């Protein structure tokens, strides 16, 4: 590919989650040329992996459908999946960007008919379900994956399994010879919407995520609750597949902790409040949710949702940072040890399942930020020295979806301003 696909009038958006899609679309619908580069094989990002949104309890895929429709119908956006930024040189108004496009081993001809998936037997961990399940090594990342094209896992490409997939494809879309591609483009402005990743819960040793099967993370819990998830929406705990009814939610799992993340991740309180309603949805009055917290940060009208959950008799709150988790070896139940600091009540409480409300940290794997980028002490992007690159959404700060979209829309206009200034100076 050549640089001609983009000019100093083009905006590059890095990251195809809800923030990246928003930044790209808002600019495109203003008539600007946009390249949307996404590292994974599909758009949607972390929000596509959520079951419901707080506080409306609506489904993220609903908004995703609209955004995908906007993308399909808009010639100004060029989507590049499996694409990462390798290097950025130049400056505001005129950046030279090197992109690395990983091989998908499936061409544009793919019709998502699914024959290759039927043909191969090899399985790989299901990334979409945070590895909770397995998926065929020739797969469609998820039901709303866009581009709607299958992917071959590199592990089978050079094996008979790869050949099976190739043989099974009725339209010859499987190309085992595909190799990594490097693309050079010129753009005028860059929006970094590289998003977040859940903090590695294993690092929080007192909670034994690495030792106890029934201690899981909040993002994994989203997949358990989702009918499209590995358990078909049933809250089955990992150790024995039994339905979990008495569930603990531990706030600040990594956040607000100088041993882990200095910052407050903002969303975790609301996420846990939301997830207590998954328990209600699944178990009705049988369910029991307990939230262990330091401060409940239900800001602005989210307070309404907090009050609603407080009124739910199946939900209780303990003002305490849990000290440690032990295991009841007889039944695999985690036992939470700590002190309720309101008053002072020592507890050693057993639960079927523990959900760690893990913090957000900026997703930086595979992303090499130019030195010109200004980041804060937790590596969230504040901006760039030359004012031509902008952070958007969770890459700029731990944000809920609504605020991430605001942030992305703002970043989109800042990028447009750069393009506009470049144009007018070039014209002059």
């Amino acid at each position, binding site marked *: 590919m050549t640089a001609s696909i983009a000019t100093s009038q083009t905006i590059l958006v890095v990251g195809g989650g809800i923030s990246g899609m928003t930044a790209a679309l808002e600019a495109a619908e203003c008539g600007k040329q946009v390249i949307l580069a996404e590292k994974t094989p599909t758009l949607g990002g972390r929000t596509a992996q959520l079951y419901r949104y707080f506080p409306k309890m609506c489904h993220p895929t609903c908004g995703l459908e609209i955004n995908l429709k906007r993308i399909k119908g808009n010639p100004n956006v060029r989507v590049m999946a499996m694409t990462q930024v390798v290097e950025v040189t130049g400056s505001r108004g005129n950046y030279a960007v090197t992109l690395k496009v990983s091989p998908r081993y499936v061409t544009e001809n793919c019709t998502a008919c699914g024959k290759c998936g039927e043909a191969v037997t090899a399985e790989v961990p299901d990334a979409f379900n945070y590895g909770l399940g397995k998926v065929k090594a020739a797969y469609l990342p998820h039901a709303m994956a866009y581009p709607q094209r299958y992917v071959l896992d590199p592990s089978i490409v050079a094996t008979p399994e790869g050949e099976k997939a190739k043989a099974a494809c009725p339209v010859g879309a499987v190309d085992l010879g595909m190799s990594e591609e490097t693309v050079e483009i010129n753009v005028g402005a860059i929006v970094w919407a590289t998003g977040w990743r859940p903090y590695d819960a294993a690092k929080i*040793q*007192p909670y*034994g995520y690495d*030792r106890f099967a029934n201690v899981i993370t909040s993002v994994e819990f989203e997949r358990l609750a989702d009918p499209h998830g590995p358990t078909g929406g049933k809250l089955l705990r990992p150790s024995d597949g039994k339905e979990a009814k008495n569930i603990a939610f531990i706030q600040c799992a990594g956040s607000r902790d100088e041993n882990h993340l200095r910052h407050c991740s903002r969303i975790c309180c609301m996420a846990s409040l939301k997830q207590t309603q998954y328990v209600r949805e699944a178990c009705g009055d049988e369910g029991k949710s307990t939230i262990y917290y330091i401060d409940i940060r239900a800001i602005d009208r989210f307070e309404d949702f907090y009050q609603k959950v407080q009124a739910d008799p199946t939900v209780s709150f303990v003002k305490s940072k849990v000290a*440690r988790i*032990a*295991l009841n*070896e007889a039944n695999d139940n985690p036992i939470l040890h700590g002190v309720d600091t309101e008053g002072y009540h020592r507890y050693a409480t057993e639960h079927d399942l523990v959900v760690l409300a893990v913090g957000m940290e900026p997703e930086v794997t595979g992303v090499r930020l130019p030195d010109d980028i200004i980041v804060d002490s937790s590596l969230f992007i504040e901006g760039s020295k030359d004012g031509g690159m902008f952070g958007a959404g969770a890459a700029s700060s731990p944000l809920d979806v609504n605020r991430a979209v605001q942030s992305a829309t703002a970043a989109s206009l800042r990028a447009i301003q750069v393009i506009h200034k470049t144009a007018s100076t070039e014209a002059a």
Partner: protein
Amino acid sequence: MAKKQYAFYPGCSSQKKASADNFLRSIDVVCQKLDVQLNEIPDWNCCGASIGYGEGGELPRLVISARNLALAEKNLPGQDMVSVCPACWLATREAGERLHESDSLLAEANEALREAGLDLKNEVKSRHFVEVLIEDVGFEVMQQQVVKPLEGLKLAGYVGCQTNRPFGIVGESFENPRYLDKMVEMVGAQPMETYDQKVTCCGGALAFSEPEKSQKQIRDIVESAYDHGADMIVTPCQLCQANVEIYQSEINKKQGTRFNMPVVYYTQLMTIAYGGSATEAGLDGQFIRAEKLEKLAGK
């Protein structure tokens, strides 16, 4: 191969004829096998560990540790200071770091040290013997010396507090340190991976003042070792060893339990695995005899 030289800080309980006398004997064997030479710091003093604060306060406590550091600096220049007692190591390392952080404290400490004709530059690195074994010698070399693998011996690795917190052994987790289990594997014995009292405090500091409270801790530690099918407990700490071993009879008396769980040091395991005799390993020093280990030694 040239011997590795260290300024050695035995501490009160590891002196000859003191409560961890047997520990010291096994350490001698291990050092010989691994070409490690511990040069005792002349005229070292007590570190004032655990409850020294009560009367000693801050500066006096720091100063007595500073004295040991100063003596090491003066008499064994260039050598890291090594303790076998976690409490000694901790107190000394803490003192070193506190004096490093605060120039005013260091000045005050030196003002006091001068009374004893000493001066502290505070350049000595304070380390624990386990660190020396793992970082300077390494598991591979330690394993090469094993001539008599301790096959079939089931050991609950009781790490306790002070080799583990707040500093810990590099790369280990505070909640689930694995170095002791690795040592057990290294000598050919079987670690109790799921032993859940690994890092529980034995309450040693309160053994005398609050016996029932510390014995409650000990009971949990021993019970869990039985529950996980251990033949004996292994520990890196004198205070833990003494506490957990000696008070079992007390607990039996008071609570009608039938505890008789031997508690040994990692160096005793190594001594036997390296072909040493029960006596060389100081097994005659056990309060509760470690019969299975003695048998292996006799083979």
